[in-house]
C-alpha cells in the first residue's frame, strides 16, 4: 500500500467511520443484561489468551520478587537450624502475627489485579481468579486494610470487580461500636471529597465523631460483618431532611493494590470478621515496620 498524499477520506471511509460511530453509540446504550454477556464473551474468547499472558507475566514477576526473599529465608534457616527450639518459638510468634489470610481461615482466594490504562480502571477492574478458583458473583473483595469492592461478573479464570469507588457501589455499614448504621456509598464528585466514601442515612439525632471506624454490617447477605470500610472524617456538607451524611476516608484506594483476596465462602449468620482485620492494624506488620 502506498503511503501517500492521495489518501483523504473517501466515501467508503466516511461510511465505515459512521458505521463504527453508530455501533459505538449502540454499545454505549446497551442495557446491563446485554452488555455484561457481551463483555464476558469477549473476555472469554478474543481476550482470553491475552489475559492468560498477562496473568502468567504477573505470576512470573511475583516469583522473581519472591526469589530474593526465598534465598534470604533459606540462608536464615540454615543459620537458625542450630537453634531449633528458638526457631519454633519464633514461628509461634510469627504465626500470631500472620496476616489476614490465616485469620480468615478458609473461604478465600488471592488474585492479582490486571490493571488497565483507562482512567476508569479504579472503578472496575479485572482480577486473575474466576469460576475455576471458586469465585462467584457478589463475592466480597478485600485487602488486609479493608473492603475493596465486590465481584460483578465471573469468567473461567478472571472476574470483574466493582470497587467501592464505582457509582453503583453500596454497602450496609455500621460503626465498630454498633452505635451508628448507614449505607456506605462513593462520594465521588467534587473538590476535596474526591475518592472518598459517604456514610448515608444516619439518623439526624446521631452525631458521628471524627475518627469513628466504619465496618460492614453484614446486612443484605453480600458482605460479611466486620470488614473495615473507612474512617469518618466529618460531615458531608449541610444536613438535609431527617438524615445526616458523613464523609468516610476509605481504608485503601483501589489503584494502590496489586493483589486482593476474594471471599469465596458465603457469609455465615452472625460471623464477624472484625478481628481478622483489626489485629494487623494494631500490629506493625501491615505498615512494613519490623515487629517488636
Amino acid at each position: 500500500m502506498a503511503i501517500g498524499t492521495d489518501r483523504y477520506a473517501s466515501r467508503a471511509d466516511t461510511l465505515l467511520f459512521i458505521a463504527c460511530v453508530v455501533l459505538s453509540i449502540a454499545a454505549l446504550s446497551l442495557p446491563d443484561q446485554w452488555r455484561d454477556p457481551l463483555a464476558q464473551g469477549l473476555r472469554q474468547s478474543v481476550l482470553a489468551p491475552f489475559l492468560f499472558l498477562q496473568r502468567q507475566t504477573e505470576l512470573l514477576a511475583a516469583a522473581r520478587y519472591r526469589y530474593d526473599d526465598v534465598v534470604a529465608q533459606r540462608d536464615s534457616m540454615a543459620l537458625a537450624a542450630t537453634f531449633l527450639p528458638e526457631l519454633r518459638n519464633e514461628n509461634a510468634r510469627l504465626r500470631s502475627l500472620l496476616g489476614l489470610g490465616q485469620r480468615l481461615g478458609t473461604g478465600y482466594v488471592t488474585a492479582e489485579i490486571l490493571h488497565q490504562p483507562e482512567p476508569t480502571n479504579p472503578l472496575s477492574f479485572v482480577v486473575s481468579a474466576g469460576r475455576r478458583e471458586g469465585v462467584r458473583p457478589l463475592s466480597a473483595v478485600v485487602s488486609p486494610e479493608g473492603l475493596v469492592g465486590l465481584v460483578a461478573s465471573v469468567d473461567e479464570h478472571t472476574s470483574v470487580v466493582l470497587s467501592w469507588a464505582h457509582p453503583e457501589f453500596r454497602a450496609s455499614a455500621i460503626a465498630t461500636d454498633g452505635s451508628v448504621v448507614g449505607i456506605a456509598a462513593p462520594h465521588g464528585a467534587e473538590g476535596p471529597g474526591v475518592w472518598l466514601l459517604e456514610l448515608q442515612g444516619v439518623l439526624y439525632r446521631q452525631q458521628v465523631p471524627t475518627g469513628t471506624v466504619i465496618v460492614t454490617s453484614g446486612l443484605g447477605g453480600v458482605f460479611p460483618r466486620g470488614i473495615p470500610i473507612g474512617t469518618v472524617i466529618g460531615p458531608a456538607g449541610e444536613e438535609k431532611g431527617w438524615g445526616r451524611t458523613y464523609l468516610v476516608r476509605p481504608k485503601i484506594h483501589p489503584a494502590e493494590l496489586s493483589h486482593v483476596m476474594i471471599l469465596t465462602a458465603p457469609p455465615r449468620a452472625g460471623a464477624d470478621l472484625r478481628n481478622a482485620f483489626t489485629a494487623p492494624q494494631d500490629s506493625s506488620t501491615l505498615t512494613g515496620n519490623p515487629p517488636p
Partner: protein
Amino acid sequence: MRRTDRYRYPVIITLLVLLQFTVRSHLGGDRVAPDFLLLALLIYTIKAEPGKSAAAGFILGLLRDALTPASFGAGALAHTLVGFASSWAKAVFFAEHVFVKGCLFFAGTWIRNFLVLVISGRLQGSQVAWELLVWSPLQGLTTALVGIGVLWFFRGWLSPRRAGATV
C-alpha cells in the same frame, strides 16, 4: 516493494500488543505507563485509510471496554474517533517527521482519555481535572516517547519507499 513488506506492520503491531500484556504493568504507575495498544492503533493509522483506521479503533475500543466495563462503549467510540482523526490528519498534513509523529501519539493518547472521560461521564469535577491535566499528559508523554523509540528502532521498516528503490 518487497514481498516481506506486507508483514512489517503486523509484526510491529503484534509486538506492541504483547508488550501491553507483559511489560506494561512493570513500567511504573498504571496511569503513567505507556499505552502500547493505543500506540499500535496510531502506528496503524499512519499507514491505513481513515475508514479502516476507524474500524480498527472501534474493534480495539470494544475489546478494551470488555476489560473496563465501567465505561462500556465509551472506549469504542473514543478509539473510533481517534483512529479516524489520526489517519485523516496524517493524510492531510502529511509530515514524515518523527517529532510530528510523536506529537500525534501524545495528542492521540490525551484525546482518547478526554473522550473516554467525557463519554463515560463516570468521573467529575477535580477528578477530571487531575486526569486531563496531570495523568493523561504524563501517559501521553510516555506513549509518545515509546512511539518515537519504536519508529526509530524500526525506521528501516516503516520509512516510505520510492518505487524501484532498493534497500
